[in-house]
């Protein structure tokens, strides 16, 4: 640490110790920590970092009073965070505990092509009850994620995604923006009606298909699976009706997301980002959904320091960024304006819960060292039983 940084940090800590008590209780801070992906600890096996992932169907409560069935890695949405160092040998044992097919695609990671997790292109799907082992070297550095690549439209918005962070002990971002704390925010958009109907249809279909597979009666046309494009064309010429013609999906419309989540939760259950005055924090943004998000931070500019995990040579300062589907962006926020500041999608259609504002991917940057009296409200509000900010409001 440079002398100048040391002075800055120690003077901030000293100043904080003279401030009145924080308005955040220890319980609130602890509960907020649970809203970020849990880091999965690997087992070391002959120098290889070994992780175990499984997928199952769970009931996901995105806000109090609203649940839907989803898929989940290790029971959580998003799945656990995998953290390794650049160059580590990684082995992921993936167990399918559902009656659907799945794979895992390692988004942004230089895996050998047979480990890329694209069904029928790099591997066969991991069928119900089966296990598949992915092995690769962790590179490149940066914020990446993993997701199911089977029935991607359904399976990703059903919760099959998680962050994959490749660290570098000589982290280039830390050099430019010294930070200690960091947060991962995985964004997604869900059409809960599409998920429900399509999951049911897929489950029913898979019961039949597995019955046939177990009895050695795989049929290319029935399973809509062909060796070559020519074979498909030949089948159509011979009278085969492909699924996109006869519409074997449960619904005949593309999904229209009605829930927008950050780390699997919608406002007011979204995580908050905590910061202290004078502190830098790193926020890793992942878009695992199908919608674009235009994320805007109030009261601050931030630095965009990585794009798809790749450090940006000349970081840009901004207060709104575009997070496209499949994108990861890393930002640094400097704690230089004490308060509670919202951080939300400026396409405000995504700040809704089932069509009602506010909701969705609305969260806050909160200065945890802010004195409690700064959040106090006036007498009128206290008479209403609302002593201090922030307040949870569901109907503006």
């Amino acid at each position: 640490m440079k002398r100048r940084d040391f002075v800055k940090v120690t003077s901030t800590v000293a100043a904080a110790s003279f401030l009145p008590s924080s308005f955040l209780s220890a319980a609130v801070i602890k509960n907020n920590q649970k809203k970020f992906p849990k880091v999965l600890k690997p087992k070391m096996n002959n120098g290889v970092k070994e992780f175990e992932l499984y997928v199952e169907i769970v009931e996901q409560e995105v806000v109090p009073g609203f649940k839907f069935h989803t898929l989940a890695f290790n029971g959580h949405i998003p799945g656990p965070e995998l953290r390794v160092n650049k160059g580590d040998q990684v082995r992921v044992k993936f167990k399918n505990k559902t009656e659907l097919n799945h794979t895992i695609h390692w988004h942004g990671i230089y895996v050998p092509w047979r480990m890329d997790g694209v069904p029928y292109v790099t591997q066969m799907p991991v069928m119900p009850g089966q296990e598949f082992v992915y092995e690769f070297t962790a590179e490149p550095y940066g914020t990446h994620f993993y997701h199911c690549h089977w029935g991607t439209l359904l399976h990703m918005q059903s919760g099959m995604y998680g962050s994959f962070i490749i660290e570098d002990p000589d982290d280039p971002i830390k050099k430019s923006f010294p930070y200690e704390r960091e947060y991962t925010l995985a964004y997604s958009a869900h059409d809960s009606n599409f998920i429900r109907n399509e999951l049911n249809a897929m489950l029913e279909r898979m019961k039949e298909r597995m019955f046939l597979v177990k009895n050695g009666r795989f049929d290319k046309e029935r399973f809509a699976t062909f060796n070559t494009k020519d074979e498909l064309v030949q089948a159509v010429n011979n009278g085969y009706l492909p699924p996109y013609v006869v519409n074997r999906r449960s619904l005949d419309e593309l999904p229209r997301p009605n829930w927008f989540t950050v780390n699997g939760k919608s406002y007011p259950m979204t995580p908050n980002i905590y910061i202290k005055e004078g502190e830098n924090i790193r926020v890793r943004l992942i878009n695992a959904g199908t919608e674009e998000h235009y994320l805007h931070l109030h009261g601050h500019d931030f630095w965009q320091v990585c794009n798809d995990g790749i450090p940006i040579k000349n970081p840009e300062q901004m207060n709104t960024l575009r997070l496209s589907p499949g994108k990861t962006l890393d930002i640094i926020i400097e704690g230089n304006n004490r308060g509670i500041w919202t951080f939300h999608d400026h396409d405000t259609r995504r700040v809704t819960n089932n069509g009602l504002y506010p909701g969705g991917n609305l969260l806050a940057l909160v200065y945890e060292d802010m004195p409690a009296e700064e959040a106090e409200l006036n007498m009128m509000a206290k008479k209403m039983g609302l002593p201090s900010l922030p307040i949870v409001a569901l109907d503006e």
Partner: protein
Amino acid sequence: MLKQKFIRTVLFLTSVFAFSNIFGQISPEIQLGARGVMSVNLNVSSGETTSAVNDFSDSGILFGFRQKLYNNFRGRFVIGMQFPDANSDLGQIFFHQTFIQLDDRTNIIKLGRSRVASSLIEFPTLRDDDAIYFTDVLNPFSSGANTEDNQYGNVLEYTHIFAQRYRLQIHGEHFTETPKPPETVETDFNLNALGLSFMYRVPASQLWERPVIQQIGIGINNFLTDRPNNTNELDQMLTNVSFSTILNVLRDPVYFLDVRGQVIYNKGFDETTSITDNYSMTRTASVSAFASVRYLLRKMERPTLQISVSAGYKDFTNVANSTNQLQLIFNTFYRLGANFDIGFQIQYSKNEGDLKTLLGSNETRFQVALVYSIEQLWNSQFDDRESLLNLEHGYIP
């Protein structure tokens, strides 16, 4: 002022709760069911041949509206109409379904006009009344002019579901009385039948996990009649007991074969020993059995071809001169496109004893039909009780 009063009055008339539409509303799920059955018929009845170029009876349409209620219940309103049989006196259009239903995970309450609990299972026939003398407990209050009298009535039902597959149902009905009695005697809202059934039924979504039994059930129907010379209500009660089952013979997603059967025992009234009309036919003791074998080819995860053979026999045990009924039905349906089928059905029925006079001695009917049936849902909001997610992964109201 007068205008405002009028508007207020209209508001109260059109809504149970005034101001209920001031705020944004949660739109209901909207369901549409429609079935068009068009057939060309050729009948050979006791030697005489008649034909119908276009028989569209049983074609109908259903509208359903469904909404989540508070406290995990759901509410549904269904209204539907169909074209009755050509020789019925029900008019051009018959409102066969108009009911409200409340249900949660394990309870179903139904009130209104609907299908009565006169049969425990459905059989694979072209029209649902093709074998009605065998498949349904018959309405003893009807003159017999309309088969709909046996199938639809004003119902009050409560069903409790145990362990997802067991259903106990208590039901009361007002069966149609024809000719209609004077208004002073009764109204459509009195119950003239009470019943109970208990059934084990595998949800359709779990069919592949059940090796043999799809359904097995028992039911009892009691009609509260005006039996002459009996004042005791128990003595006036006409009791029918039904037993049914559906068994998988070949549980295969492509080549599917099942059998189903139902036996109905009508206890009858001892004094009814001859059959002269529909009232005496339904009030004398009888035992009927009906069974079907159905083969279903599902080539590409959708029905392609269905062939079924059904047979029924009914014996009127208390009628002197060997009165009985026999029916045989063969049909086949081939799918032309999504929900659109062409079908052929031949049915033969033979009556012995007193029934010869009432129904004729025999009839052979040939039918070629086009059938289009759809079911469409808009504004989908919640899951069905028997979806795989709700059955196997926790119930979400």
